[in-house]
């Protein structure tokens, strides 16, 4: 596989990143560069190596560690990467099955030992990126161990699809599964599928997972905008419904679906149209942070800067002709919004739709 522009960007060379600032259109959030990383680390990375979720009582979780590791690699900051990975190993990899406990709280540490599959996937992908950039075999070995553990614990077949359980425990109800499409980190799944068979018994499994994710994103369309729900139920016959027992909505989780698709180089307008339609329908007003499904009731809470960055990307790719203004990140912007903004910038840069 020849390296693409995306590989270079996500792989990260400080030189490329620092030169990317020229000629930025004012409507875009700033591109992700060395300065952006320094700012990110100052605000969210504690010296011991954990990313704090400032929107959620300063807890840390496997997802945040994964994002932090990816951004550290993209910025070429190996010291930060090692601190992040070290803290993750010491504090989250306590389950004994090679997966990370999903959440660590300042008081009490790990209280719920279940894993969150997207956190594990992001961590493994970060390790693979680091292994490539810094030529460290140990990172790759650690990544492979996590990928194997994921295959054993959370990859299941249902109705002809190969799907990811959101965590090892608690997502099977009778013969139905509860799934979260924002856990399909498409570029990570592609990286897993590209691992040599000498390291992984069945790399093609991950291609099947990715393909099934695309199928589910085409099936899971609800309400006037045809948006995917944050949580869905997949029944034994392949039927998809908005999951019971969760908020029946599109929101903070599912907004990442178009982001991950873009990060993986997908540009089929069909997959970006629902998000662009939501942005278009909101007109000049704030785009709502959540939309109930299938009813379509929206919250008063507006989408954050990071979410707007995703919408801007989605509108570009959907070709719907509308655009979204993304204000600069506020000094108090929370961890999740800031992360989405940076990843959106990386995706736009790699697709060649932003400098």
């Amino acid at each position, binding site marked *: 596989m020849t390296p693409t522009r995306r590989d270079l960007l996500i792989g990260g060379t400080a030189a490329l990143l620092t030169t990317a600032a020229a000629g930025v259109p004012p409507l875009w959030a700033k591109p992700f560069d060395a300065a952006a990383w320094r700012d990110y680390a100052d605000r969210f990375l504690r010296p011991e190596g954990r990313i704090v979720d400032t929107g959620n009582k300063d807890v840390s979780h496997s997802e945040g560690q994964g994002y932090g590791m990816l951004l550290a690699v993209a910025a070429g900051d190996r010291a930060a990467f090692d601190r992040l990975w070290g803290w993750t190993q010491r504090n989250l990899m306590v389950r004994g099955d090679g997966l990370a406990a999903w959440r660590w709280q300042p008081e009490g540490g790990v209280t719920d030992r279940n894993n969150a599959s997207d956190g594990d996937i992001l961590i493994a992908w970060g390790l693979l990126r680091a292994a490539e950039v810094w030529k460290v075999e140990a990172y790759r070995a650690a990544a492979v161990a996590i990928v194997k553990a994921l295959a054993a614990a959370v990859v299941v077949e249902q109705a002809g699809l190969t799907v990811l359980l959101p965590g090892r425990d608690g997502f099977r109800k009778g013969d139905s599964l509860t799934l979260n499409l924002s856990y399909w980190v498409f570029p990570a799944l592609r990286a897993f599928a590209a691992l040599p068979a000498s390291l992984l018994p069945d790399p093609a499994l991950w291609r099947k997972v990715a*393909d099934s994710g*695309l199928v589910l994103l*085409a099936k899971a369309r609800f309400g006037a905008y045809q948006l995917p729900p944050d949580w869905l139920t997949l029944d034994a016959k392949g039927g998809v419904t908005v999951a019971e027992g969760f908020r029946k909505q599109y929101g903070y989780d599912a907004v990442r679906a178009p982001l991950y698709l873009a990060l*993986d180089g997908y540009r*089929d307008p069909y997959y970006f149209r629902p998000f662009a339609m939501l942005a278009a329908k909101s007109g000049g007003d704030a785009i709502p942070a959540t939309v109930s499904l299938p009813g379509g009731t929206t919250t008063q809470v507006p989408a954050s800067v990071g979410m707007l960055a995703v919408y801007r990307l989605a509108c570009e790719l959907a070709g719907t002709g509308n655009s979204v203004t993304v204000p600069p990140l506020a000094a108090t912007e929370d961890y999740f919004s800031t992360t989405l903004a940076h990843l959106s910038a990386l995706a736009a840069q790699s697709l060649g739709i932003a400098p």
Partner: protein
Amino acid sequence: MNRLIRPLLGAALIGLSVGASTALAASTPGGRALAPGVKVDVAPAPGSGPAAAPGAMDDSALRYYARIGDVERLEAEIARLRALDPSWEPPKDLFTPQAATPGVDESPFWALLSAGKFAEARAAIAEQRRQSPSWQPSAKLLQELDVAEGANRLRGASDTKRWQDVIDAAAAQPEAVACNRLDNAWRLAEAYAELKQTDRAFDRYKTIVSQCPKAKERRDTIFKASRYLSPEQLRELTAIGATANPAAGEDYTTVRKVEGELESGRLLERLGNPKGGALSAADLSRVEQTTRDKQDADAAIALGWYFQRQKKHAEAQSWFAEANGWSPSDKAAEGLILALAGMGKKAEAREAGTPWRGKSSRVDQALKAVADPPRGGTGGGPAAPQGPSELDMALARNDFAGCLNAVQRMIARSGPTAALVQQRGWCLLELKRPTEAEAAFVEAQALAAREPAKSDKPAKPTSRRANSDRGLEDNATPAQENAYGQAVARLATGDVAGLTRDLPRANLTTTQKAEIRASLLATEANRALEDKRYLDALRLLDARKELEPEPRNLGILRGWSLYNLHRLDQAYALFKSLDDRLSTEESREGLSTTWKTIYHDW
């Protein structure tokens, strides 16, 4: 999604005129077989080149349908392209294998689309676009996907009664409710009607009957609309459907007839409803006329009951007799017995019941009304009534609440007897109170045991001039009558397993046993259909048919079993014969669903 290729491809192709040289040929060399026995002659490919100006039309779908031999869709696509450009001619090399076009071969996506795997097609296209960023799927492919998804979305919303979503889905994808997806067009109209937007529903129905060319489609649409529209609106709809945008070769007289059929149906429904009130003289004569014209025995029976309820026994008798003449049935005989009883002609009534005696519970029931009055009635009280007793009259009116009252009064007057309590059981059964009925039959059995004189004699020693030996042997003893009543009651409570277990040991006559067994088989067949065990359902129905002729409701059940086993021709023939005899919502539904499946016209 199962797609069935329509058998007579040739007929469809002749109308196509795919270029001048396309014709049906038995065995033209170089002809391309689309189906067994059907070949299509094709123009010589070398050097001839495509007939149409290159790039003028997107013929990717056309070529795909030609390659897989889906003539139905090929025809539709040719018609569509013709409509866009009347001067357009289909390419002559349609059936010539094409060299793979440079770039991306779309056929895997078309195959997924044809298989109904829309999400899979989307996923494959997205992956292809990722790999070849310069490639664009054909506009036709995307449009077909959009429409198919829109249609799916609409159906899903309609199935779960999310009516506003149905309307939104149609608005987002108007092609999803075009004539070639008639069922969806109906669902959209239904959504408006369910949301009480009757004017919009009416508009949708008007669009369908004026835009969709086939007479059958228009006719079915009016039947569908009859659930929601007023008689005036239906009249308007019928007028539009019979005249608007006539297509060559279509005969719209069947559309015009719908109104009369609907009207008769409505009147018959009112006739059959005891609370429906009296019909006007004009309406009545209208129903009588249609009934005679069609020699419709079911309608004649309904008319009989209508008059019987009004105590016009002579008219009732003549309609029941008509019905029995057109198509002898125990239902007609039952009416005849009770009408004659109402006229005081007991002997004739008993005679009318003879052919069904012991073979039909409803006839046996009716005969009780003309049997000797129950013992309780002969108590020798003051002025013992002459003629039919209160109980007889109640039974002759099919007034089963009245029956219970009469029995109650007779028991209060002179104490319970096995016959009276048994009568109570039958009336409770008619009132759909099976648990009480079963208790009554048990009580009657206990009473009969204490009435030794009658216990081993046939219950109804009247009218024993049966011309068959069976008539004799099938006269049930009181004990057998009670056991039979209990069995019927258990059937009504749904105790199928218990009854099946006890039946071989039950004290029943041969015919009683056969009847209960037939009912059990019908119940089991119903259950098999619900469990989607269609072969079992057919097997059970066949077994039942050996005991008794198949009634209409089971015919419908048999039709759906055949349908689900994809024995579509048989299902269609069966629904058709049922519908010809009496067109009801059930038979029409079966007919139109099967028709649409055979011609994949969803």
